[in-house]
């Protein structure tokens, strides 16, 4: 049995408290009125004006969709040019429009930070559940010794899922402006969104979210219950039950995961669509999940709790990290290249915005999520060096946080992004919660499953 060390518990709570305080600061520091924004930008001196001027020069107006945008940008460039002599009647109204735009972005900032972090940790446990089910359905012989670690990570599915759901409900109640299509005023003037309201409306959106979350949590509950029961089993009946459950879960998962990615992430940009988006999100959550399994297993092993886990198990996990990282890159590139190549205006704005405003995270992601794991985990020997796997794993997790960040932020905060106090605090808050829930769940059952027909093979697994 694993006992939760008080040090780890304390660390988790400190993370949560510091994170909560930082996040509260983020909400308080967010400006409430246009005047606040003006003040904030004025306090930065001329910088704001210069910045606005640069922005308009960089953006290729013709490539932005809709006439409105072109007009708006030419207006904002006008205000920037005359910024020094601002205050004249006509310009002042344009000025207000511009500041209101910034205001919305800044108000969204803490919310988006919260949303990204909540989704990131939720997706880790969802990815682990998918991996767990695949191990059952594939009757893998190497992994049963890691089942309890995987089950513990999926324990975060329940609290994490509830948090994500609450955030979605709060968006539905107009507490924030994360989802543009939830704003009736925007929809009233937007024919594209109007045509999508049959799918994108708040009640249906929340019902769908409840179905996905309910289904995943339900399957997780059953699999875990059976796994505990299997410890005292004398025959393979429960194993077969879990096998069928896993197969059923995987079918349910791939449909709901795909729809979840449309709902929770793609609908942040309701004018844009991509067909392989579901897979792309899947690859991201899958590789983060596997990486987390590897990191937690190595940690537990180093504390002497998993003496039956040998280097070959870590080697296998590292191979998965390596392979799925490449798979993620393949999907990232396929999505990017197809849209870049055809350069159709209504699709390509998505990437133009990311390449111009998010250059560093957007391309930096390729280094952390592709180049780093490929070069470090290609060598067979390195996959058995535990600190190497941990180091690469941390880089991969940071990279996939950035991936979620770049998927969510451009639509919610636009060019006002920054990884500052609210973002880091939200990560600390959920990181602490995740650590506490996962390690607390590890104490609930022995770390080695019994009664699994593959357990003996798994203990002697050698690559």
């Amino acid at each position, binding site marked *: 049995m694993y006992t939760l060390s008080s040090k780890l518990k304390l660390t988790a709570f400190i993370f949560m408290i510091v994170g909560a305080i930082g996040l509260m600061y983020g909400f308080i520091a967010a400006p409430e009125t246009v005047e606040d924004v003006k003040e904030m930008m004025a306090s930065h001196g001329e910088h704001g004006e210069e910045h606005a001027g640069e922005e308009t020069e960089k953006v290729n107006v013709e490539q932005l969709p809709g006439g409105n945008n072109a007009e708006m940008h030419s207006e904002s460039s006008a205000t920037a040019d005359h910024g020094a002599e601002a205050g004249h009647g006509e310009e002042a109204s344009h000025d207000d429009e511009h500041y209101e735009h910034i205001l919305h972005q800044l108000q969204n900032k803490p919310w988006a930070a919260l949303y990204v972090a909540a989704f990131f940790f939720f997706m880790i446990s969802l990815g682990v559940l998918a991996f767990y089910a695949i191990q059952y359905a594939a009757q893998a012989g190497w992994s049963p010794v890691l089942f309890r670690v995987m089950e513990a990570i999926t324990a975060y599915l329940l609290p994490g899922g509830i948090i994500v759901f609450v955030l979605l409900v709060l968006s539905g109640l107009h507490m924030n402006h994360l989802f543009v299509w939830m704003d009736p005023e925007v929809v009233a003037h937007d024919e594209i969104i109007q045509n999508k309201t049959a799918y994108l409306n708040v009640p249906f959106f929340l019902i769908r979210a409840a179905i996905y979350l309910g289904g995943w949590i339900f399957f997780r509950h059953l699999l875990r219950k059976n796994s505990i029961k299997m410890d005292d089993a004398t025959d393979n009946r429960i194993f077969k039950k879990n096998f069928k459950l896993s197969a059923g879960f995987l079918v349910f998962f791939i449909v709901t995961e795909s729809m979840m990615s449309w709902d929770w992430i793609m609908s942040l940009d309701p004018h844009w669509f991509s067909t392989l988006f579901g897979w792309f999100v899947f690859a991201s959550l899958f590789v983060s999940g596997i990486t987390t399994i590897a990191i937690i297993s190595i940690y537990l092993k180093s504390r002497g709790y998993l003496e039956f886990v040998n280097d070959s198990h870590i080697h296998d996990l590292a191979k998965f990290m390596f392979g799925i990282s490449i798979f993620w890159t393949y999907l990232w*590139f396929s999505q*990017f*290249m197809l849209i*870049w*190549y055809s*350069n159709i205006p209504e699709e390509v704005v998505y990437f133009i915005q990311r390449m111009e405003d998010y250059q560093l995270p957007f391309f930096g992601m390729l280094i952390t999520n592709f180049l780093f794991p490929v070069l470090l985990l*290609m060598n*067979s020997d390195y996959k058995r060096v535990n600190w190497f796997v941990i180091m690469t794993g941390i880089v991969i997790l940071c990279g996939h946080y950035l991936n979620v960040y770049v998927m969510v932020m451009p639509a919610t905060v636009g060019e006002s992004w920054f990884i500052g106090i609210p973002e880091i605090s939200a990560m600390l808050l959920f990181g602490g919660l995740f650590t506490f829930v996962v390690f607390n769940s590890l104490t609930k059952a022995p770390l080695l499953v019994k009664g699994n027909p593959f357990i003996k093979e798994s203990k002697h697994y050698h690559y």
Partner: protein
Amino acid sequence: MASKVLHAIYRDDDLLLQAVKQIREARYHIGEIYCPFPVHGLDKAMGLAPTRLAITSFMYGLVGLCVAVAMMNFIMIEDWPQDIGGKPSFSFIQNMPAFVPIMFELTVFFAAHLMVITFYMRSRLWPFKKAENPDVRTTDDVFLMEVDAANHNIDDLTDFLYKTGASEIKLIE
């Protein structure tokens, strides 16, 4: 070949593996082992050095990548930067996404083919090569081990090999 060797035949791969361990412990020298199929762990038991084929493959892959980059940079950007359907041919990086499929394929092509050719060269395999098979049965169901007998008493060695489970032993001079 001036030196003498013993050809010991084993009928089972487990027996063979065990024999290899015993023979190595007794400090006899194993020249070569002929098997009808790969025996898992035989190379480790014999103490063979690990292959470096994967390393060569990685380097060949890098060569392929460089070839692809150099080729397309010269053709598409330097030699004749034509406007083809509005693709930006001003610099390599601007048009890079369009080159990635070729860069990828050439990397794989070089890595795979040159590695295979390296394998053939290192293991001396080619179409009209004369087969070096000491006993035709080794391609079907028996395992043959060649033990160096040069500086040893032949009778002692033969006895020892029988004890390790060899079913036939032949002296080759």
